[in-house]
């Protein structure tokens, strides 16, 4: 049977949040790119919650933006409510979260993809990867679709999300589909297995969608967006995001709800053992919560609009795989949902993904050259986690094709670095979600300074425009200059100052002090002190914010920077890619196995593998020295 054959630089499989970033990055870097999706309508689909961002995920979106990715811009265009979370806490944990108009989000991303040069969008199911042998190792040469089409390329990026051998479960009903009833991809996993790829089976779930017209909002607590909205993208004009926002609603489950759930547990596929996949602990279904936290008499339920042009409401906090009839009964016990009509059922979804320990930190498979992957396929969860991996995979696949240095961010540079390092290094038995507590240097990795941290990398890679990078350099200089000025300003204990301090609820001065000391007082901050700092230059808010944070938390930041220095030392000690740890005399067997699986790139990464002890690290160091001697002797 004659079939089509086409040539590209890069094939991206899947057009979810990872696939979109990957395809955009690759095409923007000049790669001839083709993006495959099972359905054009599902490009950048948000099959679960209707938000972008949230704690630590907001950080990821900012970092994507600083590197030249798309997610931040896209949500700025399509959000319908926005909130900065944790504002009462330290700047390191401030996190932006926006409610998206799902349909617009998807459509805007589609427009951006369609407008991109070097990018072809194709509706087709990829069923096979094609490889060749090069020096005994598999090398990617293309993909094949189910209709027989062959697409030759130099690199492939797999972003298959939850579609591989997907199975949706609602009570006793099992549907062999992807999310939202979309067609599953049933062939690709087998092709990967044939290439020796280790496959995991994970599970996740989503709550029901209700008809908003059937909900009694008067019984719920209204949740408004921020009065002054902060955009996600560093390039969005803040004035453009001051829109009329929609509300979300808070209500609670009660004992009645829990009773219904408990008596129906035998019909839950999770408890009946029908579900094989491992679900995430951070996003438990309501039946999980009721069982695991039996002492709680209520759980929060958030009612969130799915968009402006739909009456569907997302029931956050009540994802479930209970049967349809139980769902009706259970949701209707919740105040405000007594007469609610379900538009779409809640369901659990199971899918194939990989053990990400098989990847290098570049997101390339260790055993298959040129094969990159990102998103839920790598065992993560969440739109933002997917998008940032997609961006990195897109960049590194392009670098692979060009024969240039890949981009690897380390744990002290970005949340993205933490996420990828965790995935490729640690054992991961559930869908991985970002959390601020996973970042050991989170005081430095703030959402407010993502541009300062990463713009240079984005620019050097070729994704961030020069004007943008120039601005960040300028901003950096302005911050430094103002810090210098402030450090020299002395404040006398005069009458004006004293009465000013009193009016701010701050203790008057005994003697003159520096402006820096005053900024550090918990009840004061940089902006507040303008009246007693007459020589202050006019500066943009983003500059003033950095000055304030740098001064206020200087001691803590300094300590973390010192820790980072220590950390970097170990990261810089590189390990040979081809090191066979069986040959290292003195390693314990458990360490050998783990090291041979992960093949860490540095001593730093090796030390983070569970089951590798400090003594093992010493042994590796000694071994490497030994090898060096041998080389020197030759």
């Amino acid at each position, binding site marked *: 049977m004659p079939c089509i054959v086409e040539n590209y630089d890069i094939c991206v499989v899947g057009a979810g949040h990872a696939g979109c970033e990957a395809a955009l990055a690759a095409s923007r870097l000049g790669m001839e790119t083709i993006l495959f999706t099972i359905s054009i309508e599902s490009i950048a689909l948000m099959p679960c919650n209707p938000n972008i961002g949230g704690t630590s995920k907001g950080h990821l979106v900012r970092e994507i933006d600083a590197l030249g990715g798309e997610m931040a811009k896209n949500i700025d265009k399509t959000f319908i409510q926005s909130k900065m*979370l944790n504002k009462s806490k330290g700047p390191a944990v401030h996190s932006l979260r926006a409610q998206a108009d799902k349909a617009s989000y998807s459509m805007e991303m589609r427009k951006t993809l369609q407008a991109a040069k070097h990018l072809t969008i194709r509706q087709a199911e990829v069923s096979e990867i094609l490889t060749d042998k090069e020096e005994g190792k598999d090398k990617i040469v293309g993909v094949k679709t189910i209709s027989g089409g062959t697409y030759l390329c130099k690199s492939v990026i797999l972003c298959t999300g939850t579609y591989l051998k997907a199975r949706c479960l609602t009570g006793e009903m099992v549907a062999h589909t992807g999310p939202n009833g979309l067609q599953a991809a049933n062939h690709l996993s087998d092709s990967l297995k044939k290439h020796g790829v280790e496959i995991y089976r994970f599970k996740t779930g989503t709550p029901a969608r209700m008809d908003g017209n059937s909900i009694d909002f008067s019984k719920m607590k209204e949740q408004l967006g921020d009065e002054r909205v902060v955009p996600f993208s560093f390039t969005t004009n803040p004035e453009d995001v001051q829109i009329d926002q929609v509300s979300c609603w*808070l209500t609670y489950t009660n004992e009645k709800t829990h009773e219904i759930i408990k008596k129906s547990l035998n019909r839950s596929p999770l408890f009946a053992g029908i579900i094989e996949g491992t679900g995430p602990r951070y996003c438990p279904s309501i039946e999980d919560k009721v069982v695991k936290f039996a002492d709680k008499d209520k759980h929060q339920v958030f009612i969130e609009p799915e968009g402006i042009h739909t009456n569907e409401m997302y029931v956050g906090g009540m994802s479930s795989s209970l049967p349809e009839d139980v769902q009706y009964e259970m949701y209707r016990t919740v105040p405000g949902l007594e007469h609610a009509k379900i538009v779409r059922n809640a369901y659990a979804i199971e899918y194939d993904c990989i053990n990400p320990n098989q990847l290098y930190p570049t997101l390339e498979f260790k055993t298959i050259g040129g094969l990159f992957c990102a998103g839920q396929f790598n065992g993560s969860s969440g739109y933002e986690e997917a998008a940032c991996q997609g961006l990195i995979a897109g960049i590194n696949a392009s670098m692979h094709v060009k024969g240039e240095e890949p981009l690897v961010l380390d744990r002290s540079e970005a949340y993205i670095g933490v996420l990828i390092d965790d995935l490729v290094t640690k054992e991961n038995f559930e869908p991985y979600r970002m959390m601020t507590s996973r970042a050991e240097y989170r005081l430095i990795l703030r959402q407010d300074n993502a541009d300062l941290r990463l713009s240079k990398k984005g620019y050097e890679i070729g994704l961030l425009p020069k004007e943008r990078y120039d601005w960040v350099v300028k901003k950096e200089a302005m911050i430094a200059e103002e810090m210098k000025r402030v450090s020299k300003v002395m404040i006398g204990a005069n009458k004006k100052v004293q009465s000013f301090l009193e009016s701010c609820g701050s203790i008057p001065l005994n003697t003159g002090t520096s402006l820096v000391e005053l900024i550090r007082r918990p009840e004061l901050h940089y902006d507040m002190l303008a009246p007693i700092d007459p020589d202050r230059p006019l500066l943009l808010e983003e500059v003033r914010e950095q000055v304030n944070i740098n001064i206020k938390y200087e001691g803590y930041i300094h300590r973390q920077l010192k820790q980072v220095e220590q950390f970097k030392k170990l990261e810089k000690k590189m390990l040979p890619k081809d090191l066979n740890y069986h040959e290292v005399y003195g390693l314990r067997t458990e360490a050998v196995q783990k090291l041979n699986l992960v093949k860490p790139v540095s001593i730093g990464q090796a030390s983070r593998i*569970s089951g590798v002890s400090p*003594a093992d690290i010493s042994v590796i160091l000694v071994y490497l020295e030994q090898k060096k*001697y*041998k080389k020197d002797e030759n």
Partner: protein
Amino acid sequence: MKTDTIAAIATAMTDSGIGIVRISGDDALQTADKIIRLKEKKKRLLDCESHTVHYGFVMEEDEILDEVIVILMKAPKSYTREDTVEINCHGGTLVLRKVLSLVLKHGARPAEPGEFTKRAFLNGRIDLAQAESVIDVIHAKNDFALKASIHQLGGNVSEEIKKLREKILYEIAYIESAIDDPEHYELTEYGEELSLKSGKIIEEIDRLLRNAKNGSVLKEGIHTVIVGKPNSGKSSLLNSLVKRERAIVTDIAGTTRDAIEEQINLNGISLNVIDTAGIRTTDNVVEKIGIDKAKEYLEASDLVIYVVDASCPLDENDEQIIEMLKERNVIVLLNKSDLIPVVTKEEIKMRLNKKILSVSAKHRKGMEDLERAIEEMFFHGEIRMNDEVYITNARHESSLQNARKSLILVEKSIENQMPEDFYSIDLMNAYEELGKIIGESVEDDLVNEIFGKFCMGK
């Protein structure tokens, strides 16, 4: 590359003679300089030439701690090829320990097991042929440190530290849950609550630190293990050694089911004596655990005192014990010399070629001979105290101190009204430091605690 500065007691520890505290690393000189006052007027250690010897005092603030000889070796001409200072003290475990803590207080950190050797190697001081033995050293010392952590933490230290860590972890998880899910968990007025809790944990650590100073975190001394089949008189021996009733002495075989430990000072040599359960083939579960433990203690021992009941013939239990002792430092005691002997010295000698003495533990006869025999073995270098114990102890103490410092920082953050996420930074440091003592790392503890104790997510 810049290296941090490490310190340890570099000699075997005795209550007599001279002991050396060794400091190595970039700040070795600066650290030593801070605590040493040279005899030569106005001369400072920092200004001294490499490879010179100086006479002076170790000062703890204005008090003289010890009169010492200091040897200065600047990089690269030292064992580790780093700046090295060796302080020769007047021996005595107490003085050495004090000098070491002083050094640690002034910027050095306790050396990891085998770290001097490791550094010597990594800095190219040792040749290739020696490399493999370095690995063995690292492993042996590490194994010891691990064993020390598991078996030798005095009293309930291990349990207490675990409890403290649990408490700290819970608080971190609470803060982190509130950060992660701010619409669910509140932190209003949490600071005051945490301040109280952290104050209590500091008190606990202070108590542990006091104990550490008294030397009871780890049992120090020559690890001496008493073995013998049931009812051979091991407990009587221990009793006459410590001269008071400690172990329960009865005529019922198998009375001592658990190991009993005592610290004894024998003319300046400190012994850490462990009386083990009698070794015999048994079906009794409790006793079996005791016997397994005795075997473990044997493995970690410096000296074994094997008590033979001279009044009854050698049997399979004795054979079993003798088999385990062949490779060890052993003194054999033919006990119950007051009764009619059945077992002779020659009979033992054929099976186990070690020093053999005839004693009666019950009537305290022959005890002087035993003491002399131990002294001789010690001074002839046949038995050595494991200096790792001291280093491990110093490490534990420094970890406790660091954990304490971190908790003080937490209190400071609360006092300064810092946002709550700052608390968890220092709480985490305290948690990690305490973990070092019991040999537990952090790994995914926090994430597990968050998901286990707090209901997260929408």
